[in-house]
């Protein structure tokens, strides 16, 4: 992978970009023109046909012109892109501003053996841009050019890192086999995705019941109410089974399409992940940009002992950008450890001691839930036929168990390097981030917490807000002060 290509002169994309540009253009036009198309589809006169023909032709011409007007070059650690058909524009992107370079390959790309490059910069919204099509080798070479020259200004740090680095460059840390894919697909959180339609059904049924009751009054109670309830329960049961099968199938297919041939690779200063059946994606993330590791299992995933993991980058906008973080699925605990060891160069990520939130968190929730339960039972005496109340009564014990599990699992631990927050209700959830990458800390108190001298601590990271509830106020303050001390004295750049 040496420098075969010279990027110092302005060069164009692969010719394959032309159809791709035209295709994209048509796609946007199609969306805009859709209502018009639907309106004229049956009564298309010769003039409309001509107009459409002209439009299509304009698209072709536009695509070709914009292809020839789109050039990129590399000059002194900067990527310069010139483009525009009517309004010419020039973008200069210094390499150090480039956050990530991701490869994307749809079926069309694969057929033409080209890749699309998405280049994300640390700037604000809309600062990311695309190279529609470059040949595989050229894209790879461009990426290594950008990554290589970035290494130069990081050199002093690099020397220290190489000594202790335990993973080789280019080593595959983790890959998914077909069986793993099946496991991932089968253990999606089906329950969660089933909740919405069940709730919808419940609501629908309730409304129907209302109508039925009205009808009954009119026709003098000719219909047997028991029968209605029985048949609706049957419908509900059947629906749940059908939905379960459907949901499992869908998530199976989805995870196979999404994570097909997943490969997680260590590269210089970062990680690279590639996956996808129809659309192949390749995402790279640099160590310095990583803000947070988030991994979790769920009830089903506990059986094959697999986890999903997200490696989050700093996102400049509050809107989540696609590809601003790496998603992995089907990892064993060992895979997670290897990843963390690779990133942290050893095991400074291991936190020994954890603290739990105050029991008041649980007590308060249980009190509120019990009061609700009492209220619901009382209400049941007045409205014995309201199904929603019965459902509520059944739900409350579930919420109580949930609250209990939350209390048991929520824990925070820290050492010189990282903060580790554990959590989850039925699942086990882990958040791990480096203390010096935190942007700000807050301590918050509700009136209740204030009375009990408790507080929640909130960490603002560049990859989202993370909180730890119901700590002792003094404890929260000492954590805050420690975190501030680390941020204010750590020499490393947060990104």
């Amino acid at each position, binding site marked *: 992978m040496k420098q075969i290509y010279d990027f110092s002169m302005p060069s164009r994309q692969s010719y394959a970009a032309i159809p791709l540009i035209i295709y994209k253009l048509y796609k946007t036009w199609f969306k805009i023109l859709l209502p018009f198309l639907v309106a004229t589809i049956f009564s298309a006169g010769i003039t409309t046909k001509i107009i459409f023909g002209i439009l299509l032709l304009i698209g072709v011409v536009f695509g070709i012109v914009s292809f020839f007007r789109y050039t990129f070059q590399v000059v002194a650690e900067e990527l310069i892109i010139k483009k525009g058909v009517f309004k010419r524009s020039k973008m200069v992107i210094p390499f150090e501003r480039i956050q990530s370079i991701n490869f994307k390959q749809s079926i069309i790309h694969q057929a033409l053996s080209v890749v699309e490059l998405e280049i994300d910069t640390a700037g604000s919204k809309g600062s990311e841009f695309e190279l529609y099509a470059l040949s595989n080798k050229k894209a790879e070479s461009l990426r290594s050019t950008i990554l290589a020259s970035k290494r130069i200004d990081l050199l002093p740090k690099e020397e220290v890192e190489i000594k202790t680095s335990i993973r080789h460059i280019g080593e595959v840390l983790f890959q998914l086999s077909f069986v793993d894919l099946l496991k991932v697909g089968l253990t999606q959180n089906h329950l969660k995705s089933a909740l919405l339609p069940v709730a919808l059904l419940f609501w629908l049924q309730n409304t129907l019941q209302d109508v039925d009751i009205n009808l009954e009054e009119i026709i003098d109670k000719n219909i047997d109410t028991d029968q209605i309830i029985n048949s609706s329960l049957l419908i509900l049961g059947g629906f749940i089974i059908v939905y379960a099968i459907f949901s499992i199938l869908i998530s199976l297919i989805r995870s196979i399409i999404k994570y097909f041939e997943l490969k997680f690779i260590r590269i210089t200063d970062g990680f690279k992940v590639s996956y996808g059946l129809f659309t192949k994606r390749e995402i790279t993330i640099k160590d310095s940009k990583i803000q947070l590791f988030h991994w979790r299992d769920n009830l089903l995933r506990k059986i094959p002992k697999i986890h999903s993991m997200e490696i989050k980058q700093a996102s400049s906008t509050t809107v989540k950008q696609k590809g601003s973080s790496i998603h992995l699925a089907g990892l064993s605990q060992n895979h997670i450890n290897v990843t963390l060891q690779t990133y942290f160069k050893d095991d400074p990520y291991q936190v020994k001691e954890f603290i739990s939130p105050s029991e008041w968190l649980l007590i308060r929730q249980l009190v509120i839930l019990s009061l609700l339960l009492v209220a619901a039972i009382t209400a049941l005496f007045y409205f014995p036929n309201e199904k929603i109340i019965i459902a509520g009564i059944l739900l409350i014990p579930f919420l109580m168990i949930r609250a209990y599990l939350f209390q048991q699992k929520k824990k925070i631990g820290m050492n010189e390097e990282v903060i580790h927050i554990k959590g989850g209700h039925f699942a086990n959830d882990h958040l791990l981030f480096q203390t010096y990458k935190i*942007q*700000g800390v*807050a*301590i*918050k108190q509700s009136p209740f917490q204030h009375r009990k001298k408790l507080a929640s601590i909130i960490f603002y990271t560049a990859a989202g807000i993370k909180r730890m509830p119901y700590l002792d106020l003094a404890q929260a303050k000492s954590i805050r002060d420690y975190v*501030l001390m680390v941020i*204010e004295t750590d020499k490393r750049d947060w990104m």
Partner: protein
Amino acid sequence: MLLFIGFGVLYFLKKLAFLAPYTGLVILAVFLFLLALTWIRLKRFGSMGYQVRHHDLVFKDGFLWRSEIAIPFVRVQHSEVTQGPIARWMGYSTLKLYTAGGSQSDLSIPALLPEKAEKLKAYIAQKSIADEADI
């Protein structure tokens, strides 16, 4: 959007039509509610405060729900002094600090005298660079 809200309010009022005989009471309740809100606002204002420390800025806010947020100078991305029309009329400015931690961690200190806000802003900008060089 506005239309929807308008309809919503109308619908709501229609539902409340049964309260018509007790108009006096309703007005009293609304008045008391507003009074309570004002009182909480005043209390909140009383407990609001900021503190410029060696390497960070702490802002305290809230009377019922309290919060205390600390932003190290080295993590301030940029800052600005803003002034809405009412604040301009009353002669006050707001100082806003932006970090990379998302909009919720952005700090805004309201009701500062304009000169003070500018001075503070300049100080933070200077400290931000100095601290970065120091460590």
